[in-house]
């Protein structure tokens, strides 16, 4: 397992240069790439399902102390496995950091580009966002 984690970290640089895309639906219709989000929260639910895996995290507002539950979209399970994920990479109760884009409608939904797991490993989330460069 340690070897796998180390390899994952090494692979990160390579992945950065070649972000995979698993296109299914219009990213732009649902999410706003100009609204980047970075959330830290405790995993409450995981849906390891097609065409997009989802996970939900409780995010605490440091100022108000209020907790909001966010749903984050990732790629399909097979796309995530190509990124180094397994269905057990994330477990309920794990504290994770997710970076991505917020939903256009202002709801607590986001599209994850990467997730830093409780182990410290950062994995890409097989986002459906099209790359910026043609």
């Amino acid at each position, binding site marked *: 397992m340690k070897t796998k984690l180390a390899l994952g970290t090494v692979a990160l640089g390579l992945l950065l240069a070649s972000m995979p895309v*698993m296109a299914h639906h219009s990213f732009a219709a649902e999410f706003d790439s100009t609204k980047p989000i970075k959330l830290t929260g405790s995993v409450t639910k995981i849906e390891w*399902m*097609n*065409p997009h895996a989802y996970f939900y995290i409780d995010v605490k507002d440091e100022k108000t102390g209020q907790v909001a539950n966010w749903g984050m979209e990732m790629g399909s399970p097979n796309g995530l496995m190509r990124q180094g994920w397994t269905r057990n990479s994330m477990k309920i109760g794990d504290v994770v950091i997710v970076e991505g884009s917020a939903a256009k409608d202002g709801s607590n939904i986001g599209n994850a580009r990467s997730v830093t797991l409780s182990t410290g490993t950062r994995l890409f989330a097989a986002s459906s966002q099209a790359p910026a460069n043609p």
Partner: protein
Amino acid sequence: MRHRSHGRVLLTTAALVIASFWAARAQQAIPGQPSEAQAPQGRGRGRGPAAPSEPTPRLADGTVNFGRVPGEKGIWNVPYITNMGMRVVDDSGQSLAPQPAGRGARGAAAGGGRAGGAPLGGGEGTAGNGGRGGAKSEPWVPFQPWAAAVYDYNSVNQSKYDPEGYCLPPGGPRMMATPYPAEIIQLPEQKRVLMIFEGATHIWREIFMDGRPHPTGDALNPTYLGHSVGHYEGDALVVDVVGFNEATWLDYFGHPHTDQMHVVERFTRPNKNTLHYETLVDDPGAYTKPFRMAWDIPWRPNADLTEYICQENNKYLQRLTDDFDQPLFGPPKK
């Protein structure tokens, strides 16, 4: 079926509002925000020359092998081509669209967007959310007026109604532009070729190589993938496809087509690591003349197809709202 009739209403409405919609967008355009046609130079990434490739593999009878070499793994790493307008070429293969830096002299031909072995990727100038210029930004695409209007509508709403988002399969050339890997399996003894696709709702294509003609009249049933017959011309696999339905878009950006579309595809494998794909699209229902497109699809060795199913839990449909902010499915908002 509810969503289908809904779609028709939307399209009709769209025809009425498109002009004002488009004008409004034009006014809101942010200075300095590049449109696709004016994409800045030097943003290319991962487009370096691929590693030296082995020669084209061949079957026992000398035919080009478009699939695996026995004993090896490997899949075609189909690129994400979001805008086929950028892949239109002239008869000599030269790109008609202005090409971003890093895409080689062969223009579209260099364009899988990935060096050999690189993972999936390589969308077309979406610049995140923006950069959608509509039909007027692609003067080399021979739109009929209605097709230009539909394309503009799909541009303005950022492909919200892309059938692929509804888990419907792509049809025609988009099979080779949907970013999930594929395999080509030649069955010469059975006089047919199978293409199997991980994505596009886990779909397959059958290409009849036995010399049969297309069905005609009502025997030609309009389908998503159409009816494919093929033959070899030297080292090229040439596939002629008719019988498409109108439920698909040519690409993510939303170039439309009609059931009059006739597609002629030409597959070549200039070396082991490269599938060169050329296609002629002749659709007198939507375009004023035929046009050609071309791109490369890299080989990804040591890999297999895996399962991808779109229809399992498609929340996109649950959250999508129409142009009037009403849910496409479920009860209307109060």
